[in-house]
């Protein structure tokens, strides 16, 4: 599945919910499906700055696909990073670099997109793209 297809899938899922509570409950559920980062990668360098809670993200190449694992000490943040990883993981780095993140708005989590928001969603996206950029150069 392409990033776009995965984004559409997430949009469709969130479209089933009528109110914010259901959306957040689902996001919390998604957090539980997050591919967890290996404890040994839970280090300072993998911490994403700009979050009130801690978020660690690790990336590694599998052939020409980039795989992400992550964790957070906050449940909602874990849900947010789970959605991002579901969309961006197991893709070619160039696809990740080019992907837009409009779907966040469409699933009703727009308020998390503000750069001043303490959950650091913007920083997370930036970090995933930075990893992609780094591995893209490696693939070239």
């Amino acid at each position, binding site marked *: 599945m392409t990033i776009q297809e995965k984004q559409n899938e997430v949009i469709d899922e969130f479209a089933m919910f009528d109110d*914010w*509570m259901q959306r*957040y*409950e689902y996001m*919390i559920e998604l957090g539980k499906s997050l591919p967890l980062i290996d404890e040994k990668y839970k280090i300072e360098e993998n911490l994403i700055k700009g979050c*009130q*809670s*801690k978020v660690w993200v690790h990336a590694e190449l599998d052939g020409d696909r980039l795989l992400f694992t992550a964790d957070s*000490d*906050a*449940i*909602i*943040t874990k849900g947010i990073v789970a959605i991002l990883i579901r969309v961006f993981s197991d893709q070619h780095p160039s696809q990740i670099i080019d992907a837009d993140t409009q779907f966040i708005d469409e699933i009703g989590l727009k308020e998390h997109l503000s750069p001043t928001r*303490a*959950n650091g969603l913007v920083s997370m996206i930036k970090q995933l793209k930075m990893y992609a950029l780094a591995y893209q150069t490696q693939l070239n």
Partner: protein
Amino acid sequence: MSQSTQVSKIDVATIRQDFPILDRKVNGYPLVYFDNAATAQTPKQVMDAIVDYYSNYNANIHRGVHALSQEATDKYEQARIKIQRHFNAEHAHEIIMTSGTTHGINLVANGFSSLLKEGDEILVSAMEHHSNIVPWQMLAEKTGARLKVIPMDEKGELVLSEYRNLISDRTKLVFVNHVSNALGTVNPIQEIIDIAHAAGAAVLIDGAQASPHIKANVQALDVDFYVVSAHKMCGPTGVGMLYGKQEWLEKLPPYQGGGEMIATVSFEKTTYAGLPHKFEAGTPNICGGIAFGAALDYMNAIGFEEIAAYEEELLHYATSKLKEIEGVKIYGEASEKTAVISFNVNGLHPYDIGTLLDKMGIAVRTGHHCAQPVMDFFKIPGTVRASFAFYNTKEEIDTFMEALKKALMMLQ
């Protein structure tokens, strides 16, 4: 309910009409504003003062010969006198207008850099806001003085016996907040000041958190420096005051150079203006200062004793309700505290709770509250902090409790 009749001196329904913001909705829910320790809301009376200033007499002060400048100067200096009276300073020129508490602290810290030497000691409390730690660390680095910490206990109270042990003739300065922003503890500042003075040390009290609840009497306290921010007391942001005893303010060198703070200037030598202007370089926040005066008028018209009594009732009500919820741990259970509750629930991240409360229109603070040493002491990443003001109600506390239960249901 006899208690509530007792405090009916506060007519909260009428008071709430002064605060238009309290009528707004957030995320579709009526706003419940419990982040008062971060900033208090602004009553119409203060907004009117701001509009009046810009509509009728906006001008630069102290130098103009024209009518507007004279009016603005008069109003600004009247505000200084209001502040002087509120804090019972002996002289109006002991009130230095600042941009806020942080500015006041930095002004004093900077001034002391020329008065301290290696081997001198500075004491700060373990429950300080970062703004009352970092300037002293910088001062210690610059002068070679040592920074020592007055510890606190599990209840969130300072250990005064340790303070007595730490203080000596090497101690030159003691810095303590009147009320802790993270825990709400009211510190025994009179005792702290007396002990410091007996050892010959000067004392700065950070009154930012106390000022909305307690009317400090600087002469009775015999405190050397007292700092506050207007926005914690229903005034605008970007303005505050530093009270300093005249003898200290005369001893400290100016903080910033510029207009307003000089008597004469030539390229060979500049002589500084007298107090308070020596510390007020440049055009000040004129409108802000006047609005600060209006905020003090507003709060004093309600009465600080009445405010304190009402807020204490809110605090007790909220504390007992919160304790009914399983897994709640309250941080800061000092015998004397202001209307602040810092808490966590069952190891949940405060951010999660705060985010869901926000979805339900409730504004609380989450995080380390710029007091990381306090969080480290309790070995937690942060807390949820609900802080109340005299315009809050028990009904809002009920709404908050229901929302909190809903949030916990979602997270657990």
